[in-house]
């Protein structure tokens, strides 16, 4: 039990904007009052709900491959020394699982969503998630290039496809549906891509990326999945791709959708030489269409490793950089490419990317619909979020950074014309309350009575990056996990799952199709429930979903 007194509270979920307010915790939740337990005097300090990351890559085959590919980075990064009760770990571009928990919690984040899980890798992903301490976790299963589902959509068997989709979500013990470059990854199996919504998909005559996206979004809504279709659009990272992105948004009118790492999808120009920001155009459309949420996928300058299920993009990046390239192929389901990368301010393309991420965050006017992310580790590592918060809150700092960009950037970005500075309330929204709502986790990102007592106490500091990088206390489930930079406890977190309903005959229908396509026994494919530690099954409510 715990009393936190005198703190200045920012709790957007309850409309509390910087009020001095006492908080009480019992049994891991906020309660209206308790007289017992430790009292923490937070006078003069700032209290936020614990951070929620709607889109990150922290567990599974691809980040684990990235770890293997970057020993040089592990050597130069910070190392967590083991203690009697805590495992050792390495930070850096692709941190180890234990370090992932320490680093996220260290800056006040307490819930993360692993955004890309191939069904065959789901068992592996859950094993890794179990080894990420402190945080609560959820994961999304990749579905937009699944051969069985695409075949059914090709034949117009949409209802059947929906049951198969639900079956896969449960088989993977996942929390929702991720679509990556719909149709494009399927084509990449044959070395081809599908860049536009009307592109041909190798091996299919009727369906196009547009059809897949549209149908998947409707299925997700009709199954009542708490988080909308989580979409990585086609044509990622290419100059002029804003057309594809806008086309996708138009396709999705009437459905809920979450657009992942929008920064990578907001470019104009015809080629790398003429590439420019189209964030303003995209933000304008987005602002007018409340059915969508997005995360920034912001870029920061420096080293990182890029990983994505978007194999075609990764091969292009490898050719552009001439560096290491890893390419995974997951039997029949999806693929994944991995390339270490350095974003440089002197590189015009990188400079545009840096600006686009910030422009989207600043030009999308509803903080409940745009969330802080770097698509870790693609745009930058998650532990650099405090730097982005500083860029959003301090226009002067932003202008200082812009002064270092090449002069040719002038007509390619709109960032210099934007004066907006985020308030603490808005930061609490884009880092916690907003993503928690979009994920459909009402007990997260919320300091109200009965909600999970995951929260952060920051010192007021003019140096915003330092303030958010070094919280005074971090609480997870009412327990102090970080105390002035020291990791106090590293408890096991929960895993959120959903069990959407599907036709009980689905197994019988699916088995022969499955056995035709995969070289794994159908019965061995679903992840067993016993493997999920501290599993928590969230409700699917078809009537709720469109609210």
């Amino acid at each position, binding site marked *: 039990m715990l009393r936190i007194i005198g703190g200045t509270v920012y709790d957007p979920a309850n409309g509390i904007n910087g009020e001095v307010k006492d908080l009480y915790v019992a049994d891991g939740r906020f309660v209206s009052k308790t007289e017992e337990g430790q009292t923490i005097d937070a006078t003069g300090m700032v209290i936020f709900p614990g951070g929620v990351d709607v889109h990150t890559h922290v567990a599974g085959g691809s980040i684990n491959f990235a770890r293997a590919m970057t020993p040089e980075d592990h050597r130069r990064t910070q190392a967590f020394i*083991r203690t009697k009760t805590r*495992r*050792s770990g390495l930070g850096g571009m692709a941190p180890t699982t234990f370090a992932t928990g320490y680093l996220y919690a260290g800056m006040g984040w307490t819930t993360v969503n692993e955004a890309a899980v191939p069904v065959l890798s789901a068992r592996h992903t859950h*094993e890794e998630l179990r080894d990420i301490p402190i945080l609560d976790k959820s994961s999304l299963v990749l579905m937009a290039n699944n051969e069985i589902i695409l075949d059914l959509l090709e034949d117009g068997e949409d209802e059947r496809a929906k049951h198969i989709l639900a079956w896969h979500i449960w088989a993977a013990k996942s929390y929702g549906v991720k679509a990556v470059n719909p149709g494009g990854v399927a084509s990449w199996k044959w070395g081809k891509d599908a860049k536009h919504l009307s592109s041909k998909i190798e091996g299919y005559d009727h369906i196009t990326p547009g059809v897949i996206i549209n149908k998947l979004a409707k299925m997700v809504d009709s199954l009542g999945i708490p988080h909308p279709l989580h979409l990585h659009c086609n044509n990622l990272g290419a100059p002029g791709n804003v057309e594809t992105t806008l086309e996708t948004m138009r396709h999705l009118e009437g459905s809920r959708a979450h657009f992942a790492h929008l920064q990578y999808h907001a470019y104009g120009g015809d080629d790398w030489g003429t590439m420019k920001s189209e964030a303003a155009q995209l933000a304008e459309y987005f602002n007018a269409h409340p059915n969508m949420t997005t995360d920034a996928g912001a870029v920061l300058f420096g080293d990182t490793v890029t990983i994505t299920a978007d194999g075609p993009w990764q091969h292009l990046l490898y050719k552009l950089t001439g560096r290491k390239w890893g390419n995974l192929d997951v039997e029949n389901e999806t693929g994944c490419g991995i390339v270490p990368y350095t974003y440089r301010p002197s590189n015009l393309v990188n400079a545009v990317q840096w600006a686009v991420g910030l422009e989207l965050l600043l030009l999308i006017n509803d903080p409940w619909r745009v969330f802080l992310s770097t698509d870790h580790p693609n745009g930058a590592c998650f532990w650099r979020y405090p730097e982005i918060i500083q860029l959003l809150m301090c226009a002067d700092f932003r202008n200082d950074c812009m002064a270092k960009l090449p002069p040719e950037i002038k007509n390619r970005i709109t960032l210099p014309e934007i004066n907006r500075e985020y308030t603490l309330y808005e930061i609490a929204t884009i880092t916690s309350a907003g993503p928690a709502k979009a994920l459909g986790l009402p007990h997260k990102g919320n300091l109200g009575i009965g909600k999970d007592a995951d929260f952060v106490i920051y010192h007021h500091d003019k140096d915003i990056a330092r303030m958010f990088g070094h919280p005074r206390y971090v609480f997870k489930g009412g327990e102090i996990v970080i105390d002035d930079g020291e990791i106090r406890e590293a408890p096991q977190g929960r895993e959120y799952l959903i069990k959407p309903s599907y036709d009980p005959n689905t197994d019988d229908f699916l088995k022969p199709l499955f056995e035709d396509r995969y070289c*794994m*026994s159908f*019965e*061995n494919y679903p992840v067993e429930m016993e493997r999920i530690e501290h599993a928590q099954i969230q409700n699917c409510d078809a009537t709720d979903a469109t609210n």
Partner: protein
Amino acid sequence: MELKVIENATCTFCGCVCDDIELHADDVRIHQAKRACVLGKAWFLNHTAEHKYPDALIDGQPATLEEAIQVAADHLYQADMPLVYGMSNTTCEAQRECVEMADLLGALLDSHTSL
């Protein structure tokens, strides 16, 4: 005696890790390993549930499991630079324990891959 049938059993003899094996077993041994290759059949049929070896050996002499665990822990704890090696023919669950033990011990940790 009625044989127990295990469907979709997984063979861990080699890296292919086939998982479509049908095993027919009594309490002591596996009599049939359908769909397994020559190597897999030998693997399944050569292991039994007999108490063929002592539970443990300390300096070559039979010992109880508990004694052996204590002696093993003492040696590992006292060593200045212990080595944890192997981990091929075992489960992931045991491998995780190995890595955790090596972390706790400050040990060297290596698998067959380095050979």
